């Protein structure tokens, strides 16, 4: 029963495994997003009270917060793969980091964009150079920089290592984003953006947020694996197993 998990570190054996996993992740994505959005739109209060008396527009939270979370988590995931690649020189790790980057960039953009449309009705502005908003924008540039640097270098192995280093340096932004509003002493971090505190959110709102977050995770797995498969095919195009695969598929 001692199956060796490391064999999946080889692109040739990971490729078919990813192919089998992708449909599962897509189904989970669909289910979670449907449940989360249905619950968010129909099972939550129409408006908020207290000192945060937002009306229907607060429902942007169901996309905004999960997207913002994903933007930070995916960056950490990307850096982990990049660091593993640098240390162990495994081809698949670099490919993994490459495959995560576009999804992370999309979520960062989504967080900024939905934030703008939420900020207009609630705060009164689309954008402000608040510490939280500014650091999130820089994270977006880090993703773009990673993708751009990688595609600017022709030699794939050099591109992998250079981009991985840039990714690690960019990791500096993730704690900054989190603590830009959640610093230990609230009096020290003046910001327009509210702090985050999951215990202050009503159960139904929290449930929808978490369901959408889970859906976004599944979406990230699905898209990353799809991207990974095409990266594997491109990079291993000269290998026999890819040639055989193409012959079998009748595309050679």
């Amino acid at each position: 029963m001692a199956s060796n998990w490391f064999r999946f570190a080889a692109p040739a054996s990971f490729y078919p495994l990813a192919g089998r996993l992708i449909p599962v992740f897509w189904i989970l994505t669909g289910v979670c997003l449907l449940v989360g959005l249905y619950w968010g739109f129909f099972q939550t209060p129409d408006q908020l009270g207290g000192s945060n008396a937002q009306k229907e527009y607060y429902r942007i939270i169901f996309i905004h917060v999960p997207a913002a979370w994903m933007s930070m988590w995916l960056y950490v995931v990307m850096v982990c793969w990049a660091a593993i690649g640098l240390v162990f020189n495994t081809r698949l790790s670099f490919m993994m980091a490459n495959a995560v980057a576009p999804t992370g960039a999309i979520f960062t953009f989504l967080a900024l964009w939905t934030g703008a449309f939420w900020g207009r009705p609630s705060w009164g502005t689309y954008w402000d150079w608040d510490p939280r908003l500014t650091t999130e924008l820089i994270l977006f540039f880090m993703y773009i920089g990673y993708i751009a640097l990688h595609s600017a270098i022709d030699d794939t192995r050099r591109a992998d290592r250079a981009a991985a280093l840039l990714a690690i340096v960019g990791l500096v932004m993730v704690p900054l984003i989190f603590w830009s509003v959640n610093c230990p002493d609230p009096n020290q971090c003046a910001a327009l953006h509210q702090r985050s505190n999951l215990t202050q959110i009503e159960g139904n709102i929290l449930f929808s947020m978490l369901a959408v977050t889970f859906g976004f995770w599944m979406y990230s797995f699905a898209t990353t694996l799809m991207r990974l498969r095409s990266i594997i095919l491109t990079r291993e195009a000269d290998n026999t197993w890819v040639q055989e695969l193409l012959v079998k598929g009748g595309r050679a």
Partner: protein
Amino acid sequence: MKARQKRLVFVGLAIVGVGAASALALSALNSNISYFFSPSQVMASEAPAEHVFRLGGLVTPGTVARQEDGLTVKFDVTDNAETVTVAYTGILPDLFSEGQGVVTKGRLGADGVFYAEEVLAKHDEEYMPPEVADTLQTAHVEGIVESMGARGASN
């Protein structure tokens, strides 16, 4: 194996370095970068006199008054220590109300009135339906007062 360990140390050091940079940036963010000035700081002339800056605080209840032109609104912003009067011509955000936090951007006039070009409403991190929120209201107001008011006191 030797080369791999070297790379591991190298990547480990890089991550530690990045962590240190992050910590330094955070402490800089805490002590140097003032996103907004509190009324106490403005009264102590810590805010730039000839420049646009942000003033943050709570709208004092009972002070919001529309001027005769029908467009200009005047209200007091306080940090529970000092108070600055703000004049603003334009549309106020939905969440603007008495007792709530605001961040305004503008210049301090010679008459001591802060002429705002922009008024932004600040809200807290609580997402509760109105009936639940009402029961917690008292606790909250105290929370905001602490978070916005103590800025001035600590400076």
